[in-house]
């Protein structure tokens, strides 16, 4: 893994928030690297998975603190970049799809204009180019009548369409890395399949790197290539996604066992017994 060129290398990433009772560590010493692959990050709410995603874009609001030994995008150090330089990276080279389209789209601007804006902020070109690109992206995310959706406002769309529009917008500038934070948890299962396959295709065809943040273990194990399992701000285990069901760490095992399963009925579900030691243990790095 190490000799191959990675899109992203993260070493010892910390996210901290000052509170009345001292610093609170939301992410504690996480290290990983991302190639042209689908990397899943799973964990419960509060485990720091979304914070990790945001920290990669340095989108942690003050007074929050982001620290890392190394955070390299194709060998370029992102920690030393100024806010202005970061703005050039956000959206263009690394973009992020948030969980809920309802809160992430501007309600008073048409979808088409929003996608055009995302594109023309980063690419020089005429308005006609931007429009053509927006239409192309809407088609790429399998929206049936892009002409109509282009003129529509966010409230005129269903959740699934909204989410696809978000993806279209994020992909318009052709990013190298897409961070998707629970992109499908607000969607119905059938739409979820479509949204996933769009992202899947982009990884396969464009060689994009995808960080897929989710709490759905089944989904991650079938969709991703590799998985990081987070607990209390640390990575407790990493494994190949299709081997997730053979995971060894007691936390991962506990999560898996607490899931009801159609194929393996049982009378009672196992309840996760938490161990204080998991909280204190060192973060596992994924260098294999």
């Amino acid at each position, binding site marked *: 893994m190490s000799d191959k060129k990675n899109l992203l290398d993260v070493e010892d990433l910390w996210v901290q928030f000052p509170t009345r009772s001292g610093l609170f560590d939301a992410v504690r010493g996480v290290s990983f690297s991302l190639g042209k692959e689908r990397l899943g990050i799973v964990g419960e709410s509060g485990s720091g998975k979304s914070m990790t995603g945001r920290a990669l874009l340095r989108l942690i609001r003050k007074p929050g603190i982001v620290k890392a030994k190394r955070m390299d995008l194709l060998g370029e150090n992102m920690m030393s970049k100024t806010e202005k330089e970061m703005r050039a990276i956000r959206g263009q080279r690394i973009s992020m799809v948030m969980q809920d389209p309802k809160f992430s789209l501007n309600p008073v601007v048409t979808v088409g204009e929003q996608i055009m804006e995302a594109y023309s902020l980063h690419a020089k070109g005429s308005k006609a180019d931007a429009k053509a690109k927006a239409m192309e992206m809407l088609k790429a995310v399998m929206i049936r009548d892009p002409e109509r959706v282009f003129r529509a406002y966010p409230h005129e769309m269903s*959740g699934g369409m909204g989410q696809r529009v978000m993806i279209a917008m994020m992909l318009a500038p052709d990013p190298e890395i897409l961070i998707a934070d629970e992109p499908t948890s607000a969607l*119905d299962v059938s739409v979820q399949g479509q949204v996933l396959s769009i992202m899947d295709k982009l990884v396969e065809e464009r060689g994009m790197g995808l960080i897929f943040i989710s709490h759905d273990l089944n989904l991650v194990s079938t969709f991703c290539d590799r998985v990081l399992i987070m607990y209390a701000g640390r990575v407790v285990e990493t494994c190949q996604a299709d081997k997730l069901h053979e995971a060894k760490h007691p936390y991962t095992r*506990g999560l898996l066992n607490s899931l*009801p399963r*159609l194929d393996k009925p049982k009378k009672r579900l196992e*309840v996760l017994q938490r161990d204080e030691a998991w909280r204190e243990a060192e973060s596992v790095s994924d260098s294999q």
Partner: protein
Amino acid sequence: MSGVRIEGLNVWFGKGHDLVNAVIDASLEVPAGSSFGLVGESGSGKSTILRAMMGLVPDWSGKMNVAGEELSKERTPAFYKKVQMVFQDPYASLHPRHSVDQVLSETLFLHGFDNIDQRVSKLLDDVGLGGDFRFRYPHQLSGGQRQRVAIARALAPEPQILLLDEPTSALDVSVQAEILNLLVDLRAERQLTYLMVSHDLAVVGHMCDHIAVMQLGKIVEIISVENMRAMNTKHEYTRHLLLASAGYTRDEALE
């Protein structure tokens, strides 16, 4: 004791060209003491059926017989003693300025119980919370603890039938397991009848004996849990839901 029998239920919202038929000619039967699931995607009308039973939607037609009572437009206080509902979002269904004690005592008082003090502590014990939580406010509770309070509130009038509207969809899987176990235990102890709505087929498969699959307001299939596990379905849509719930399959989604 009797369960739930619904025949030809129609529910609609709005009128004129804004009319939406949310539930179309739905019929189902839940014998007393059993557990019945309703699954479907958002907007398929599954929650609307529960809300119609509870008298929370104004316009409906058809026949609903719940806990031995033929339902008309109005619900009597006696009805709510027999039938209670647990809502989806424990963050929204508890009053933020009422302590757990207030929530439960008020419910008990309104239903005309005596010995309220003892009953509140018994209810808290029953849902696994204990006395420490009695004087807390919702913001001092985790999501799972809040849902336990919501369940305690539903159990307060000692109902026969519980309507569960996605009771665990806002919770983490480990907490979901605790709440589902609690619901299974309570049903065994109190011989409750459950009617449960969920979009998660595995959850419904764990909890229920029979499952109705809904699509666009219609019940397309009623299937036993054994047949569901064996993928033995008659309707294409049920099959599609089952496949999708198993996770992501690389080529299926591209169609």
